[in-house]
């Protein structure tokens, strides 16, 4: 008879832990997704930014040595990602294949100029930097002009700012929801033990001694929830990698590992802090205030 009572008690306990673990897991999973989004948003915008072309057009009078020297000095600058010399013949070829017919037949000569295509590193793609680059290049007498799409640069930059603001806001809201949800689940499970806590105080146990097993138990639940969340997150990453191989997720395994670790630690920290405060609340109450 007593064993069935024990089983009943145990089952009740397990189901209440179950809901705590599930809520921790769900919240951490969502947080992980937002974090994953945040990581890859940077990658996507970086990819876009590093594809913006700055073209330095050269006069036909420019000597090969001068061109080589300019290309080298540009390539060595810390804000430049790649430089690529495009001769007027290459440019004509490219244009031909793009438009389908040979415009040179029409014009009779090649009107294009030799040029150097410069691509900047994502972090340096600002209008100030581009103006600096322009000024630098135009100091040389053999440079005709420097062209880039000013409005495109502005568009990218302002959108990135907007998007990262919203994603950050979203993750802040998610974190807050996470803390509140986990907090209330833990509060409930501590609340059900409030008389036990009081009794422990009556026999001379210090607050930290009483709190320790509660915190430890919650951390274990937090770890369990985090593991469940990470398994879910693992599946998501796996499928995103399969569907969008251009994100090159395999090359940022360290970052993804860092994200997983952060989610795991967050699970521990949030449950720890919540339990600390939830038990503290009941530890500080007098017996009469419990009812």
């Amino acid at each position, binding site marked *: 008879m007593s064993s069935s009572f024990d089983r009943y008690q145990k089952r009740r306990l397990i189901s209440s832990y179950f809901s705590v673990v599930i809520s921790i897991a769900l919240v951490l999973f969502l947080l992980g997704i937002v974090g994953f989004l945040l990581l890859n948003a940077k990658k996507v915008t970086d990819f876009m930014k590093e594809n913006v072309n700055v073209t330095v057009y050269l006069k036909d009078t420019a000597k090969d040595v001068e061109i080589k020297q300019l290309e080298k000095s540009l390539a060595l600058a810390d804000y430049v990602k790649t430089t690529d010399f495009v001769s007027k013949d290459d440019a004509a070829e490219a244009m031909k294949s793009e438009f389908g017919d040979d415009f040179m037949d029409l014009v009779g000569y090649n009107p294009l100029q030799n040029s150097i295509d410069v691509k900047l590193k994502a972090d340096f793609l600002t209008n100030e930097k581009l103006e600096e680059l322009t000024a630098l290049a135009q100091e040389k007498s053999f440079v005709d002009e420097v062209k880039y799409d000013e409005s495109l640069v502005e568009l990218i930059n302002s959108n990135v700012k907007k998007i990262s603001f919203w994603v950050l806001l979203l993750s802040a809201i998610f974190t807050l929801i996470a803390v509140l949800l986990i907090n209330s689940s833990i509060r409930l499970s501590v609340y059900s033990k409030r008389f036990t806590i009081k009794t422990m105080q009556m*026999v*001379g*146990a210090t607050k930290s001694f009483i709190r320790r097993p509660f915190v430890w138990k919650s951390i274990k639940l937090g770890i369990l929830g985090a593991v469940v969340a990470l398994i879910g997150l693992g599946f998501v990453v796996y499928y995103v990698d399969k569907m969008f191989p251009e994100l090159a997720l395999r090359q940022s395994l360290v970052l993804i590992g860092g994200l997983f670790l952060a989610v795991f630690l967050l699970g521990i920290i949030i449950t720890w802090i919540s339990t600390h405060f939830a038990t503290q609340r009941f530890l500080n109450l*007098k017996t*009469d205030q419990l009812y």
Partner: protein
Amino acid sequence: MSQTVLELKDASIFQGESLVLSNVNLQVNKGDFVYLIGKTGSGKSSFMKTLYGDLKLTQGEGHIVDFNLRTLKEKEIPFLRRKLGIVFQDFKLLTDRTINDNLTFVLKATGWKDKDKMKERIETVLDKVGMKTKGFKFPHELSGGEQQRIAIARALLNEPELILADEPTGNLDPQTSIEVMEVLQDINKNGNTILMATHDYALLLKYPSKTLKCDDNKVFEVVQRKS
């Protein structure tokens, strides 16, 4: 030579904002057995709570074991309670663990480390209350009288200088009350000091001792007629 373990001078006991007892003067010496009687609501429980730090003493003076109740800090309360043994009307055992684990918890919480010594101590106190064979049971598997004996054993664990019993027989039938009372009497004979709040007058007649009465916001000593 008698040693004072509890002394109150002009103390007032408050329950929240309302005054329950005023001008309490009281002295309990080592080895005494003192009854505290009174109707429900007369302030017995508030009085006891003040003694073990669950209510603050804000007026008058109070000394219990080595602690000053007026200047008692939140942090000192656990250490005060280690020097007291408290027995409650509703036993207050930890329902989620066995008797042995209940007692082990108290020992661990009060700084015991050596497992063998803890085991020995638990056997000693269970023996004192005649419950040596019940250590493996859960509280809900024991009768009320047995649970109260366990609670008394728990109170004895740290060899308290004063045992506070707040209506220890309040939930028990007369026969069981007497059994529990016998245990308390035995402990008292072994030199433990006991302050017991009760409204069970039959016990008073059977085991006469120094008696204090709470009535009309006052505590005064009543002299029992010898029967």
